């Protein structure tokens, strides 16, 4: 259930170009959130809240890690918050990634830019369930790369940069062959990337996490819809998503 919670900021650090890692403390969120869910974060002076994915959780310490990129006024203000200050959030919001528990399997995680964060908590959770994890993480350039070691500790990890300044050159889709066999995939990133991936991997079961501009973040305003493939209905990204089956929505 979504609650309005106050989170105590424990740690803030820039970990890549314009990219902030923030660790916050909250009992309720840390106990209840699952991978793929997000927090709807209030930012002082802004009319609307900002959706930010849950990048990691430490249940013992009751902390949540957020990773966000400074792209506009809201994220810029969030980046100025300091340990000891607090943050007002709604969460945990949305439906997370469905984890198929039964069989042993190999999982491909494909993240692009600031779509990478939710995949880390997912990957960690899957690794705890003894899945084999392969990760492909795409960034624009070397300076934007983050969490390479963290993903590497979960399994084989490929870094791709658009300009070739680090790791492989090109797009995440260029590396999928290299990654080898896998049973299902999970992806989050910009829509063009998700389009290319879902087209390429049309035969594999997969789930994708989507972004859209939001009003309420709780399913009440109809701002964040996406057409579904089945005849004409809309789903709400904030409450039906942000995670969908790869072939469920029309990108």
């Amino acid at each position, binding site marked *: 259930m*979504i609650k*309005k919670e106050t989170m105590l900021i424990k740690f803030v650090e820039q970990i890549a170009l314009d990219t902030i890692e923030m660790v916050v403390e909250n009992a309720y969120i840390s106990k209840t959130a699952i991978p793929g869910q997000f927090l709807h974060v*209030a930012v002082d002076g*802004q*009319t609307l809240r900002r959706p930010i994915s849950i990048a990691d959780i430490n249940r013992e310490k009751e902390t949540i890690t957020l990773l966000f990129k400074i792209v506009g006024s809201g994220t810029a203000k969030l980046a100025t918050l300091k340990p000891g200050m607090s943050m007002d959030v709604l969460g945990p919001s949305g439906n997370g990634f469905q984890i198929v528990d039964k069989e042993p399997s190999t999982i491909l995680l494909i993240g692009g830019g600031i779509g990478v964060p939710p995949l880390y908590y997912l990957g960690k959770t899957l690794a705890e369930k003894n899945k084999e994890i392969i990760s492909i993480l795409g960034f624009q350039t070397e300076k934007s790369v983050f969490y390479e070691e963290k993903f590497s500790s979960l399994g084989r990890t490929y870094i791709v940069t658009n300009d070739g300044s680090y790791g492989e050159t090109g797009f995440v889709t260029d590396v999928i062959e290299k990654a080898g066999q896998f049973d299902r995939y999970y992806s989050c990133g910009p829509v063009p990337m998700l389009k290319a991936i879902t087209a390429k991997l049309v035969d594999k079961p997969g789930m994708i996490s989507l972004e*859209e*501009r939001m*009003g309420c973040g709780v399913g009440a*305003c109809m701002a964040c819809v996406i057409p579904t493939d089945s005849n004409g209905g809309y789903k709400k990204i904030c409450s039906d998503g942000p995670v969908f089956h790869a072939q469920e929505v029309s990108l």
Partner: protein
Amino acid sequence: MTNLAINLPGLELKNPIMPASGCFAFGREYSEFYDLSKLGAVIMKAATGTERFGNPTPRVAETASGMLNAIGLQNPGVEKIIEKEVPFLGQYDTSIIANVAGSTLEEYEKVAAAFNQTDQVHALELNISCPNVKEGGIQFGTDPSMAAKVTETVKNASQLPVYVKLSPNVTNIVEMAKAVELAGADGLSMINTITGMQIHLPTKKPLIANKTGGLSGPAIKPVAIRMIYEVKQHVSIPIIGMGGISNAEDVLEFLLAGASAVAVGTANFSNPFVCPEIIDALPETLNRYGFDSVEDAIGKGIM
């Protein structure tokens, strides 16, 4: 004890606070945050004759102290609303106001008439002002004779009191208000959003897919207050005020300007508890400025 109750045509409100149409869907989502029985009333999302999917996305944009929206009346259609949503809201001890929209006179008539099927709806809010409907909605809201016509049509089709929701995108709001009063409106609801636009620099295109959207939030409060203040002096039907309300002081400002009750829209998005928090704060706020009741304050700012 401070008296928050207020009686309006069709509505015996225990307090003057209701969520605004389109900002609260049909109550389900916010019912997980608090007991909707706390609210004076709930104004439902617009209902049209048949299901609508609305506009392409992006549908919202943030602006300074406000936001633009162009949802485009997405709703499951009036029949489904009556079947599934009204009974849900009917569980709560609060009044229900149905927001009636359409593209043609016939559609307005059909939607209004449909609500006669249920006795759980207490009043209609006639949405002649949604700027996001292209087929004619906007004309209804900006031409006094068209506005009068749709008011009459809906009055004839419905047993319920009708609150006509006025658009602020007009030269002369008083003329619009008088036209719909004359046509039989039982009350007014004002203001709807002001048409605006934001251009997204990276794409060099209007950010909202519909190009224009409706501006709401604190940015528009001064326009709402001005229009209510002007209209109140020229009509004798009550006004439900809205536009940028986010706390109990704002509510008192609307009451002083001439509103008899208020709706809260955009503020729900940043604080889902805004309506109950305002209700809790209202007695003290009224008292602080020398009022014993909501009734007392209505129109007291007019000089």
